[in-house]
Structure formats: C-alpha cells, structure tokens
C-alpha cells in the first residue's frame, strides 16, 4: 500500500486505468494479509481498514473518478458478504471479486472498445490524439496491426508533456506520426479526419472529465467539423453532473509551470523578488470538463453511445453492481 501511494505521489503511475488497477491489486494484497481481530466482525473492520488505506492514498494524490467507483464497488461487495462465510472463504471471495472486476470492467472492456473503435478508422485517415491515453494508444496499435493505413497527430502540452511518451511508443511500432503542441491545434486541424480522446470520467450530463486541454481540442475539432470520439470504459461513468471545470478539479504542482524541461533559454521565472512573488500566482490545473456538444460519440464496452445516453448506462450499471 505504501509503495502504491508513493508511486502516485511521484507521478510514476498516471492514467485512470493504471492507477485503478494498481490500487485494486494493493487492496488484494492487503485483504490476503488481513486477519480479523477478536470481537470484531469481518465486514465492519475490513471496511474501516479499507477506509484507512483510502485516506492514505488521498493524501498522496486525490482519487480519480475511476478509483472512486472501484472503491465503492469493493465496499459494496464487502457489505454483501454473507455472515455465514468463514474468514478465509470471505477473503478468497473478495479477492476473486476484485479479479473479476479488473478483468471484466477494464481488460475485457478495453478489448471490446478496441473492436468498436477500429471500425471507425479507415485507410487514409489522419487521427489526432491529445496527451497520452492508454485506451487510445491500444486502439491505434490495434488498427495498425489490422493493416489500416493512417497517420497520427500527437498533440501535447506543457507541463506534463505526456505526448512524448506516447509518440515514442507509436514510432517504435512503425506508425507515421506528427508531433505538435496544443497551441498549434488550429494549424493541424485542417488535415485531421478524426479525433480520438481518452477520459478520466464521464458525468451524467454528458460532460467529459479528462486531462486539462482536452476541452480545447474538442472545441477546435468541433469548429473544423471533425468528429470527436471519446473512448472510455463504462466503470468510469459517474452520476455527478458538472457544468464547468472550476467547481471540482485537482491542482498540480505550481512550480511545474515555471520550469521548462530542457530549455534553458526560457527560464524567465527564476530569481523572482519577494514583491514579485507576492503578486504572482501559478495555477496548474489537472483536469477540465468538455461540454457534451463537442463530442460526437462515446465508445464504451456497452457499444458506441451518444453523450446523452450516459445517465442511462449509469443507472443500468448501478443495478449490475447488485446483481454480481
């Protein structure tokens, strides 16, 4: 658990799916090592222990929506454990539940998404993607394996510069790529035929909550009449609604803005006087909310749905929790 927390803190582990899987696997370990203290029931004690772990993780880095949903799933499973089970049986049930969750909701869901999304890629396409989403990367590599001829435009932004890692992985596999930064999006959008974006979560009013800058990409694509496809597993959907990006967001390290890696000539903000520091605020937002009118279709493991159908899945999905 400590290791996972430190990984979040250091930023080694990023991306909704990766963080969620790491967290669940850490929970599995914790459950295996757990033993009920005397005079306490398994369910209550385990739930409070899990709560303790979650607070530790939140201190390292605020939870992503996917992690929040996974924790709710786990707590509901713990609460539903029949009281007749022995401790070891309960532990194995829980661990297998977690395995099933990871398998069904993430791994298999991704495979279904790949299949759906690949049908939307034709020969001669120019696909644009922003930042580094694991699902979009999988889609591009899968389509490339299927033999489709297309080009990829990777758009990146400071300070995370995640696109560079994606770029490297794509070029190694032989995809023809163009790399640019977010400001140049109006310049490249003329040639783009489809935009593929990942999401951290999708809210019930169809708003896509994703890496900061996604909203700008979707907006410019919409202005140039380029279809925007958001690829997101259904377990990330949430019943919240949100209209703008300010009400609920995560703040990153402000100093990351003033530093530009590898470019000594632009370090203008070193050596500020106190008076200057007093008036200057550095704001590093991590997420933003893309309005649903910019999204053409959401590709999920339940199929390809319009943004307006998200609350339908959220409602049906909650029932599924109970049926498992």
């Amino acid at each position, binding site marked *: 658990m400590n290791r996972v927390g430190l990984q979040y803190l250091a930023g080694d582990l990023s991306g909704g799916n990766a963080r969620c899987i790491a967290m669940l696997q850490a929970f599995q370990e914790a459950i295996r090592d757990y033993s009920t203290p005397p005079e306490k029931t398994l369910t209550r004690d385990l739930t409070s222990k899990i709560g303790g772990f979650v607070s530790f993780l939140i201190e390292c880095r605020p939870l992503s929506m996917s992690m929040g949903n996974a924790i709710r799933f786990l707590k509901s499973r713990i609460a539903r454990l029949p009281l007749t089970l022995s401790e070891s049986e309960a532990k194995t049930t829980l661990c297998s539940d977690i395995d099933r969750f990871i398998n069904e909701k993430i791994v298999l869901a991704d495979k279904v998404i790949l299949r759906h999304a690949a049908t939307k890629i034709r020969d001669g396409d120019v696909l644009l993607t922003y930042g580094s989403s694991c699902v979009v990367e999988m889609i591009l590599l899968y389509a490339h394996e299927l033999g489709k001829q297309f080009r990829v435009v990777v758009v990146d932004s400071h300070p995370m510069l995640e696109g560079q890692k994606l770029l490297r992985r794509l070029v190694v596999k032989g995809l023809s790529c163009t790399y640019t930064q977010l400001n140049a999006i109006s310049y490249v959008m003329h040639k783009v035929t489809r935009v593929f974006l990942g999401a951290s979560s999708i809210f019930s009013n169809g708003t896509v909550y994703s890496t900061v800058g996604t909203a700008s990409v979707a907006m410019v694509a919409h202005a140039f009449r380029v279809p925007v496809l958001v690829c997101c597993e259904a377990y990330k959907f949430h019943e919240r609604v949100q209209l703008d990006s300010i009400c609920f967001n995560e703040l990153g390290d402000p100093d990351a803005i003033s530093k530009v890696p590898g470019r000594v000539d632009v370090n203008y903000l070193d050596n500020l006087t106190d008076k200057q520091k007093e*008036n200057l605020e550095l704001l590093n937002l991590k997420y933003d909310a893309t309005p649903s009118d910019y999204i053409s279709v959401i590709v999920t493991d339940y199929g390809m749905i319009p943004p307006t159908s998200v609350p339908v899945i959220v409602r049906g999905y909650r029932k599924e929790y109970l049926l498992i």
Partner: protein
Amino acid sequence: MPDTQALVNDFLNKLKKRKIEGSQATAKQTAELLRSVISQTRMPYTNQASALIHSVKAVGERLIAANPVELAVGNVVRRVLHIIREEDLSLTTAAMAGLNLSAESDDEDDTDRDNHPALSAAAIAAASRSTLRPPSLQTLLEDVPDSAAVPHTSSSGGDSEGKSKSADKSSRSRKLKHDVIEAVNELIQDISTCRELIAEQAVEHIHQNEVILTLGSSRTVLEFLCAAKEKKRSFRVFVAEGAPRYQGHLLAKELVTRGLQTTLITDSAVFAMISRVNMVIVGAHAVMANGGVIAPVGLNMVALAAQKHAVPFVVLAGSHKLCPLYPHHPEVLLNELRSPSELLDFGEFSDCLDFGSGIGAPLLHVVNPTFDYVPPKLVSLFITDTGGHNPSYMYRLIADYYSADDLVLERRTASGN
C-alpha cells in the same frame, strides 16, 4: 546612392535572418530606410512623383521579398507610396490654383480647355499629365510609362513659358521631396507613439475588479494594462504561458513588477478558466483587410473559447499593422515554421528519427508554426491608435492609408504584343 545601397543591403540581411523583433521596430526601420532612399533619389525636371515612386518600389519589392511573412514591411512601403501620391496631388492642385492667376494665353496644343482662355493650355496639360491618376483602361492596355509622354509636351512650349515653367517645376520638385520627407517623418512619429495612443483608451474598457485574459506577450498589451493600473483600476490578469516560446512568463514577470495581480496558467487551462474571465485582450502581428488577424499561435483556440463563453475578444493593433491584402490560405502562406527543437529534444528523440519505412521517409514530423489566423467573426473589437473599430470597418481604414495602385507592388513585365 552607394550610401543608400549599403543601408538597403544591411537591412535586407537583417530581414532575411529574422534579426528584428516585432512589427513596430520593423516598420520604423523600414520607414527610416525609405526616407533615406527618397532623399537620395535624383529628381528629373518633370514627373518627379513617378521617379520617387519608381525608386521606392524598387527598394520595397526587395524588402518584401526578404521577409514576406513580416507584413509591416509591405505596409510601410505602401504607406510611403501613398504619401508620395498624396503630396503630389496636393501640390498639383495648389499649382493649378496658382496658374489661374497668371494669364498666359499661348495656345500650343489644342486641348479641351478652350472655354478657359485665361489659363495656359500647355501648362494645364502638362500639369494634369504629370499628376498621377488612377490607371485608366487605356493606360493599362498601352502599358506606357508616364514619364515617356511628358517631356515631348514641355519641349514644345515657348521660351518665356519654358523658363517660367522650369522655374516653377524646380521649385515644385524641391517642394515635393521636402513635403514627402516631412510626411514620412510624421509616419515614423506615428509608428513610435502608437502604443501610447492605444494605452490611452485603456480606461474606457477596463473597469474595477475585472478579470482579463491574455496569451503570450505583447508590449502593446503590457502598456495597455499598465495604463489602466495607473488610473487606479484594480483588476486581475490571467496570463497563458504561450508555449513553446513561453513568452507569457515574461509578461507575467513584467506585470508583477508593476504591481498587478497576475495568475500564470498553462495554455491547456484556457478553456477551463475562460468562464471566469470578463475580457480577453491580445496583441496582433498583422490585421488583414477583411478584419482577420494574424496573431501568435494559440490565439485562434482562445478566440473560439471566448466566443463559446460570450467573452469579448479585443485585439490591440497599431495602424502600421493594418495590411491592405486579403488573406488567402493564411495558415500556410502567411505562416512561418520554427525549429522543432523547441518542442522535442533532438538528442532524446534521435532513436525515433532512425525508424523509417521502406522508402526511407522519416516516420516522425514535428510542426511548430509561429502564427495563427483568427477570422473576423471571432473578434469583438479592434483598438488602434485612431480609436476602436469593428472588424467590418477595417477595410475602410485602408482607403485612408493606402492607394489602390500600390496593392500589387511587382512591376509589370513588358508584354510583347
């Protein structure tokens, strides 16, 4: 002339190597160079204006070719040509008014001014021919340069007339050059003071407790905001950093030094923050005749976000940035691509550059444009040194500053009929 040639070559070099930063500096230096060219031009007895125009055009074409993306150069060249034409016209009308008083009645050529016997017909004919008129269909088809026609007429004048006319013309030629140089000095003065005139209007637009958003760095915007601060308006500024040059960092540093509350945000956060912003104020590289703006890269994205959230998008531009050309495919033709090393470190990505497909073409392209085109419908207001204008009005300002003949500067090649 050799002196000017050296100056011209030196300036051409600077333009080609992109050594001059900013359109104001470029415009000023272009105007000063053209002033030297004008003062060095040898003036013939007749048709001085054509000679001036010819020499300015010759230099101007070369300057524009050195840096076609820096539109301020072409703007200043066309302004100077317009000045020459205007000064010539005003001198001619003054001269013609003066001729009304002198009553010489030698009728050499039969012109169509028989009903004014008091005027010297030859003088009038010569004056009206030497005035530069807008191209008529006849002149366009004949392609006859103006200077060929006139000496013939003046030589047919009588002696006494000839003497008075030549005395007239030499004083006129000195006067023309003098007037033109004075007007060019005024132009240089205007270019230098445009930021102050724009900044004076700041108080009308920025109110108390407003939130302003800007991207990158523009000296005009800096002075505009500081002028509002001087008038005791307190407001916040969000500065988007403007990757990959990160000039927003510079602007933020300047603003906090002058005591303004500033927040530095990333470009990706512009859409997120713009809902809390009252106004977007940006500078421009050039303003085209349709009201479209050639602006630093990223501003089209900001303009679209501003339109979505109904936030006014205000562009500050000095009048030397107003270009009389209409933009055609501006993202490509009026853009410059900078070095990819600003985006990717060559050393880090050298392994990626090795992967090639069978034909040996590289798999990795890096695109780093300098400018963005913002269409006129996204701009709410232009603030220039002459006041605030709608984008739909900008084409009218062109008539004030430029002549229709100068829009195409390339000389017509002699057509063999």
